[in-house]
């Protein structure tokens, strides 16, 4: 879509025409006795000469830069590259990239190598060979690229992630049991008092919390303690409101308040938190060789030259204004 802007290049004709000097007649001099001479056809000379060539050049460059910026100019400049998913062991990279010794290695911003490659594919030269090493996220469909891409994916052991939770409740054991339940790579650490790492505070006490405590999320047992919950919004069975201390969640019948049957509600709360806060990790893509597909759609915005083009545009604009001003004086 952006490349349609290249059709705006004929705009460059405008400054060229403006700067072109007017058509000149054959040089004629006044002669009083010209009436005794035969009439000649006046000769028109089209003179392709420009006034203010510097200004013309600046204006043309300005327009060309603007169009290039709008068209999101991408120059293929990357050669053979080994794309490394972050967190991959260097030994593995060395082993897989043995055939591409001189290739440049670059670390991808995240696991989604296919998406990144799709966006930046225009930056690679047509003959570039691409090797992706590491725990590559599996895309929903088989990716198509204009380059041949070798995927050497290997699932990485999930790193243990800790979430800190503080519980203030009359029944702390029940909450501890809830958080102690295995949840894959996740592990919940129940702290006695909230710290800066605390992501959740369970407040199941009838009195208001001390002023200094803050956390991104609060689970409130008694809604009367927090006046902000008077104006709650409802999503499913969870009522929520925002306060200065963080987001507050509560339910009509608070789980783990009376009997153990309500533990399901508590698990639902936990599941909702996990779902909202921590999306599921994609599977690892199987290792494979993606053959080059010339008809594969080009990626969207490259943006590689956007900063340079913007600065050039600014500089050219300033120069153009200065030169115009100088010429007027």
């Amino acid at each position, binding site marked *: 879509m952006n490349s349609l802007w290249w059709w705006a290049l004929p705009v460059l004709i405008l400054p060229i025409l403006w700067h072109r000097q007017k058509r000149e*007649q*054959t*040089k*004629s*001099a*006044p*002669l*009083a*006795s*010209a*009436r*005794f*001479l*035969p*009439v*000649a*056809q*006046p*000769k028109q000379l089209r003179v392709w000469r420009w006034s203010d060539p510097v200004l013309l050049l600046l204006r043309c460059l300005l327009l060309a830069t603007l169009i290039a910026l709008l068209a999101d100019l991408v120059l293929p400049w990357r050669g053979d590259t080994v794309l490394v998913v972050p967190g991959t062991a260097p030994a593995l990279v060395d082993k897989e990239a043995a055939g591409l010794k001189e290739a440049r290695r670059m670390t991808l911003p995240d696991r989604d190598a296919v998406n990144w490659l799709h966006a930046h594919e225009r930056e690679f030269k047509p003959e570039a060979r691409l090797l992706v090493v590491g725990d590559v996220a599996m895309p929903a469909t088989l990716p198509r690229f204009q380059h041949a891409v070798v995927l050497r994916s290997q699932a990485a052991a999930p790193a243990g992630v800790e979430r800190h939770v503080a519980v203030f409740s009359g029944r702390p054991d029940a909450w501890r049991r809830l958080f102690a339940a295995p949840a894959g790579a996740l592990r919940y650490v129940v702290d006695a008092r909230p710290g800066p790492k605390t992501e959740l505070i369970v407040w199941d006490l009838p009195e208001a919390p001390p002023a200094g405590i803050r956390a991104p999320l609060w689970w409130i047992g008694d809604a009367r303690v927090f006046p902000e919950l008077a104006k709650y919004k409802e999503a499913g069975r969870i009522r929520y409101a925002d306060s200065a201390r963080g987001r507050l969640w509560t339910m009509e019948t608070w789980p783990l308040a009376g009997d153990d049957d309500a533990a399901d509600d508590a698990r639902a709360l936990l599941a909702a938190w996990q779902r909202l806060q921590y999306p599921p990790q994609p599977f690892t893509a199987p290792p494979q060789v993606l053959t080059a597909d010339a008809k594969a759609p080009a990626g969207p915005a490259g943006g590689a030259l956007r900063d340079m083009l913007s600065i050039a545009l600014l500089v050219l604009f300033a120069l153009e204004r200065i030169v115009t001003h100088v010429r007027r004086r």
Partner: protein
Amino acid sequence: MLDSSALIAHTARLDLVIRHVLAGLGHGIHAGRERGAGVEFSEYRAYAPGDEWRRVDWKLMARADRYFVREAERDSHVAVWLVLDATASMLEPSRAVPELTKLQYARVMLACVAALAQRQGDAFGLVVCQGERAHFTPAARGPRQLQRVLAQLNRTDAVGTLPGSDTLRASLHFSPAPSVVCVAGDFLDWPSPLSEAMLRLRRMRHDVRALCLQTEAEVQASFDPALAYRDPEQGSQVFRFGRDVRAAYVRNREAHFATVVSDCRQNDLPLLCARIEQAPGEVLRTWLRKAVRA
């Protein structure tokens, strides 16, 4: 006497030029009917710059501590009319002498005639045909009139075409008293309102003298063939000069001026064709003598 017309191009001071041109050319256009200044005393008048010192009354000056000039009773009945064609074609430059144009030359000639008329005590006036109008300076005597006429001549720029015959008829309508009409122009338009007016004045028994100014290049038909030419007074047509059209140019031009000369001769109107590269003093003398002979 000014030997070279190149000097005309070098100064804008007409009074200086005419002093040089008129050096040794003291005799006037016509035989004055009166004897010179101060024959019959009429009145005293305040001195004006340009008055001859010998006409200042020194006794009166000693008494009054002011300069006074004895004005004599010498009414010459001859009025001299200077007619200058200042149309755009008069800007034609001499292609041999840099910065000399027909207009400058004509200006000097008429200024000299004006100075001569002033020396003789004749009244003189000026008519400038320029830009479809005739600028009229009424005839009068004296040094101030000379200055007025010289200033008017200096101001004159060559633009436009000749005025219509009605305008000229109104401007050149003189009293039946005999007058001298000196016309300087290029006469490239013939017949023209100006030529009709000249012939009409001649038929009215005025002494009309025409000075037709040409350039050396026109006479020799030698122009730069690389350039295209246009008529300064007519349209935007472009003309071409080359070796092939030179003969036609000479033929056309000679035919035109043959008509001019024959018209003048038929009407007994003295016409001098002069090139502006000629020495102005020589041309002036020839012009005045030709007129006297005629």
